[in-house]
């Protein structure tokens, strides 16, 4: 299936000379929730801005639903809704007029019934005639979402949607995002919270220093997450793993001083008992053992560190 967003060799060098994106290649599938995970300054906002037409790419190409976002910007942008990271609103405008304005700007004939629907969905209907300046931060965030949804986009970008957002709004937001996805929309959100990516996403991409360093199904990541390692510190080093133990997921480390056994903690049978029996059969003694669990956090930290 053709990806809904396709990014090919995207580079962005800002006027200051700063290289914010370095040869980014990324495909987003239709109908998925994709989380772009990365520390502050990684280039998440720059990447989204390049797709949405807010930043000029320095080189490379971006396609949205098959349309080049530069040469066919009308077709491409009509499909995209964006909730930016910063809360920017016209202070003296009313909620309803702000949302109606967005719909018109994206080339759609006015549809008060639809606007009413999204305002109600986002618990904004009561506030429809309030000026933006009278709203709390959370309410403003809801308005930004309503604006992004006003033209019924197929692709929705949420740039750090839960930064500074209360629990209630967060829950509402996730419900809404899942609802949109169930109706066939594609959602791309950025975050630097791992739990958020874990909670929401179908796939996760990790970006650091302007480079995508990992793209993985969340389930695959979770499987890696479920992997545990048992490290046996041996009495005396061995040269190689005995032939009979070849079939086991064993690795020799620290010049033969350590034996590392990888197993799936979520399985009934970890095989540890069998391993220990085999070891004593081959006279391999150990003085200590410990086990570790890989968390997404570890994977992330390792990736980011090895990359730096």
């Amino acid at each position, binding site marked *: 299936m053709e990806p809904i967003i396709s990014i090919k060799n995207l580079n962005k060098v800002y006027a200051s000379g700063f290289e914010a994106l370095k040869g980014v290649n990324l495909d987003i599938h239709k109908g998925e929730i994709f989380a772009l995970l990365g520390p502050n300054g990684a280039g998440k906002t720059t990447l989204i801005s390049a797709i949405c037409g807010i930043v000029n790419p320095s080189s490379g190409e971006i396609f949205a639903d098959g349309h080049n976002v530069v040469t066919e*910007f009308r077709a491409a942008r009509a499909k995209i809704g964006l909730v930016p990271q910063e809360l920017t609103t*016209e202070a003296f*405008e009313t909620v309803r007029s702000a949302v109606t304005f967005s719909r018109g700007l994206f*080339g759609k004939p006015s549809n008060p019934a639809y606007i009413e629907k999204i305002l109600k969905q986002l618990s904004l209907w009561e506030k429809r005639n309030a000026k933006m300046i009278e709203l709390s931060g959370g309410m403003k965030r809801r308005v930004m979402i309503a604006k992004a949804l006003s033209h019924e986009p197929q692709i929705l970008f949420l740039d750090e949607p839960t930064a500074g957002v209360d629990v209630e709004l967060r829950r509402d937001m996730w419900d809404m995002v899942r609802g949109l996805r169930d109706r066939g929309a594609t959602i791309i959100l950025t975050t630097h919270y791992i739990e958020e990516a874990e909670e929401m996403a179908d796939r996760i991409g990790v970006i650091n220093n302007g480079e995508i360093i990992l793209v993985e199904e969340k389930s695959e990541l979770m499987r890696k997450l479920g992997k545990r390692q048992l490290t046996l510190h041996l009495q005396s080093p061995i040269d190689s793993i005995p032939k009979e133990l070849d079939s086991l997921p064993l690795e020799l480390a620290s010049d033969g001083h350590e034996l590392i056994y990888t197993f799936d903690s979520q399985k009934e049978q970890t095989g540890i008992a069998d391993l220990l029996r085999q070891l004593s059969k081959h006279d391999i003694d150990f003085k200590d053992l410990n086990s570790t669990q890989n968390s997404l956090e570890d994977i992330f930290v390792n990736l980011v560190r090895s990359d730096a």
Partner: protein
Amino acid sequence: MNFYAIRAIYLFEMARTARTLMQSIASPVLSTSLYFVVFGAAIGSRMGDIDGVSYGAFIIPGLVMLALLNESISNASFGIFFPKFSGTIYEVLSAPISFVEVVIGYVGAAASKSIVLGCLILATANIFVDYQIAHPFWMIAFLVLTAITFSLFGFIIGIWADNFQKLQVIPLMVVTPLTFLGGSFYSISMLPPIWQKITLFNPVVYLISGFRWSFVGTADVHIGISVGMTFLFMVLCLTFIWWIFRTGYRLRP
């Protein structure tokens, strides 16, 4: 062409004017009226006729131009500067619209305001001063053309300015002096010969001269030249705006 977008921007800008009616309409009408009272009714009664009309009637075209230029520039520059300043410009940049729609929306709204304002000032002037309009069609044509041209110019200033001071500096330091020296209050033929030549480098001279011709039927410069110069300035502004959007200058990093 995305007509819904043009309409959305236009209506948004007009709503902003409606919210600030005192500042955007009432205050320029009032301040221009003061000129009519002081120069037209009070001082003008002691002055001789110029080009066959009373001094009060003579200065009306210049005063309308003065207000038209200032208001066109300040409306259009603020209209685009503010979204840039507040960050709401992201929405315009990410919308499926080209610079043509953006310019028609913002500049169209700014020019509309100026035209309404120009008409209000003319109506107010009638209270204090007697005047005739020799060529009503050309009067309207000049009004509209000037409003559009200087709204385009204001739009450029609004994009160029990255702080409030820059937003004010061109109107205050360049446009106001050029307007005052452009023959708002005198006929160019009243200047010493050398200044008559120098003053022709002032683009505002052509606007005021042309506009005054449509009222009194005589002018410092030929009407054809006036129209031509105004169009030339408009084309320059349009070219510059096209370049801005093509390169993303001060809009898209």
